[in-house]
């Protein structure tokens, strides 16, 4: 226990925590949306994130964006981000939708029991991770350093770096856009309706298959954005099994906020990110990855519905 260290580094730990937590939140959206509509933990979602990461990496490599020693000039950086986000979000969304079509839809048509869905999700997750693992010889790949983290402005002891601002801003924008989409648009109403009562919404003329497709699509897009943001962090490394730990944490974040609840995913992600970094301050980096799991178990014991409650259908958002 290093309380003095925690207090000394408090601003830095908090900001880093928010930055990482924002990425967890974006991944958590995929779990929460699919869970809200299908009542299914989509284990393969972590691999959707992983694929997005590799898609961005390969696109950058293909286009010659390789900056190692120093950061790119601004124009080139923006271009790289634009290309990267299209590649990552596209690949992730395509993966998510493909999983739905190939693995889950046949099960739905056969009215398979929930256990079958979970097992299929595991299978899909391992096929994707191992497929990439075999293809990349299970080696880790460093991301091109597109952005050198530097302090942009300072407020008391709080130093905001450029990566933190980018990650948090993008996440908030994506969350607000999604929130508005789900609560205001026609398709969003469809999602809420199916989440509330699939059979009745089918009677009311909602196309359930289309809603499910949409949910996987949105989850995939968000995971792709998260993958891109992860790549511009200084720790960004792509590896075939990178999805596992992030997926577990994002799931914990989703449960923390209340699975099936969009705003809950944001809250849970940020809380988890911050808690992890405080744990780093208190106990050292070795313990960072335990926080999510411990929080998950404790939460399941005392408040299994999460902080903001569960339902995607009941919530206004």
């Amino acid at each position, binding site marked *: 226990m290093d309380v003095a260290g925690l207090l000394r580094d408090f601003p830095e730990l908090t900001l880093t925590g928010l930055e990482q937590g924002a990425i967890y939140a974006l991944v958590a959206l995929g779990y929460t949306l699919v869970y809200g509509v299908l009542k*299914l*933990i989509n*284990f393969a979602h972590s691999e959707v994130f992983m694929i997005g990461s590799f898609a961005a990496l390969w696109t950058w490599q293909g286009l010659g964006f390789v900056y190692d020693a120093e950061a790119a000039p601004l124009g080139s950086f923006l271009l790289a981000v634009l290309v990267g986000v299209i590649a990552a979000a596209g690949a992730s969304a395509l993966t998510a939708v493909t999983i739905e079509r*190939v*693995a889950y839809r*046949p*099960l739905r*048509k*056969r*009215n*398979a*029991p*929930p*256990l*079958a869905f*979970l*097992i*299929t999700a*595991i*299978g*899909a*997750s*391992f*096929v994707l991770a*191992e*497929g990439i*693992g*075999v293809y990349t010889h299970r080696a880790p790949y460093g991301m091109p350093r597109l952005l050198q983290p530097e302090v942009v402005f300072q407020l008391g002891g709080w130093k905001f770096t450029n990566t933190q601002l980018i990650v948090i801003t993008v996440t908030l924008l994506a969350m607000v856009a999604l929130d508005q989409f789900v609560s205001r648009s026609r398709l969003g109403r469809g999602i809420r309706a199916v989440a509330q009562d699939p059979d009745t919404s089918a009677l009311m003329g909602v196309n359930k298959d289309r809603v499910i497709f949409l949910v996987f699509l949105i989850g995939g897009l968000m995971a792709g954005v998260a993958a891109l943001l992860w790549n511009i962090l200084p720790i960004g490394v792509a590896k075939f099994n990178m999805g*596992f*730990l992030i997926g*577990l944490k994002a*799931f*914990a974040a989703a*449960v923390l906020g209340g699975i099936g609840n969009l705003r809950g995913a944001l809250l849970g992600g940020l809380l988890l990110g911050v808690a992890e970094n405080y744990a780093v301050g208190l106990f050292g980096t*070795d313990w960072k*990855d*335990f926080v*999510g*799991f411990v929080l*998950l*178990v404790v939460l*399941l*014991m005392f408040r*299994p519905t999460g902080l903001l409650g569960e339902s995607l259908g009941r919530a206004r958002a």
Partner: protein
Amino acid sequence: MTNGEHATPARAANGEHAAPRARGWQAMKSRWSEMPQGMRWAGTGALVVFLYLLPNRWFYEYLWYLPTQASDMATVLFETAFFVLLAVGLNVVVGFAGLLDLGYFGFFAVGAYVVALVTSPESKAIVEYNWLADPITWVAAVPIAVAIAMVSGVILGGPTLRLRGDYLAIVTLGFAEMIRLYASRTEGLLNGDRGIPDVPHPVPGVKDATGDSLFLFDAKPYYWVVLTIIIAVVVLVRNMERSRVGRAWVAIREDEDAAEIMGVNTFKYKLLAFAIGAAIGGLSGAVFAGKQGFINSASFQLESSILVLAAVILGGAGNIGGAIVGATITWYLPEWVRGMGKVFGLSFDPSEYRILAFGLVIIVMMIFRPQGIWPNKRRASEFADRRKEVAANA
């Protein structure tokens, strides 16, 4: 499928797999069950004797291409048997009670580490913390390991089994991964990646013909030990399945709410299944530690948990025989294929693609034959029933 079967819609709607091979299988099964009891005992006995003889070179070299060509047959048999034991244990959790346990190797790790901690003269529990004065023998450590694995199952299952089943999956997954992380990252009790060396081999007193201790580097005696354990565990689990406990599990698996209303204490029986699974996982960990003589976090990767699950699903969850067949296929087949590749002059390592392949197998099986290769009759009809319901919905 023959025309005769098409003519009976009742049978088709029943969803039973009616390929000709399955008919032959059915015929064999009914012939087996019509045999006099003595004959059946003799048949089972012959099978057991065959399995005990199998790792001996003077025996298996007469079995054409059945033995593995590329690796030591006894070692492969040991690993297969060990895998079968894990599958039989996981089958109680997944197949009987219908709970998805994705961190089965977490309990394996608990068993292995407990044995290593209390038996190795280098373990920190003895050298540094002085919890024990002297290392104890392997045989005495096994019950402790099994008990602690079981208790860890109860601790983990307690809070999660009250909730929806899918949380259990993620918590068990996390549990196994956290144990691995703890073991590999922290020096603490488990010595990080250096692990715990000098775990004694089981029963050093037993000597072979030349006067050396039987339990050394030859895999054969370990195979016999595991085989014996498997037989004992199978008898135990089979009796449970046929008792009140087994009927409670079936009720929970088919409809938990209905079971609860009928007075089945669902939480108790789910926890029991989970604890039994954990205990068997711990037991296999204990045996593994005794065989390897060394334990570190590399001994239990996440993939192994998934492979055991794949084995159970492939063979037929809910049926002990199915779990055994599935585990044998999952472990023995890739080794055998590697050997056969050598015979034909090919060189590739199928175990590299093992998880990829079994991931695909899981997806395809869940769609087309969710009941597995050798299904439990009752579980197969559960799937068929659900499939019929959807016809009414669509």
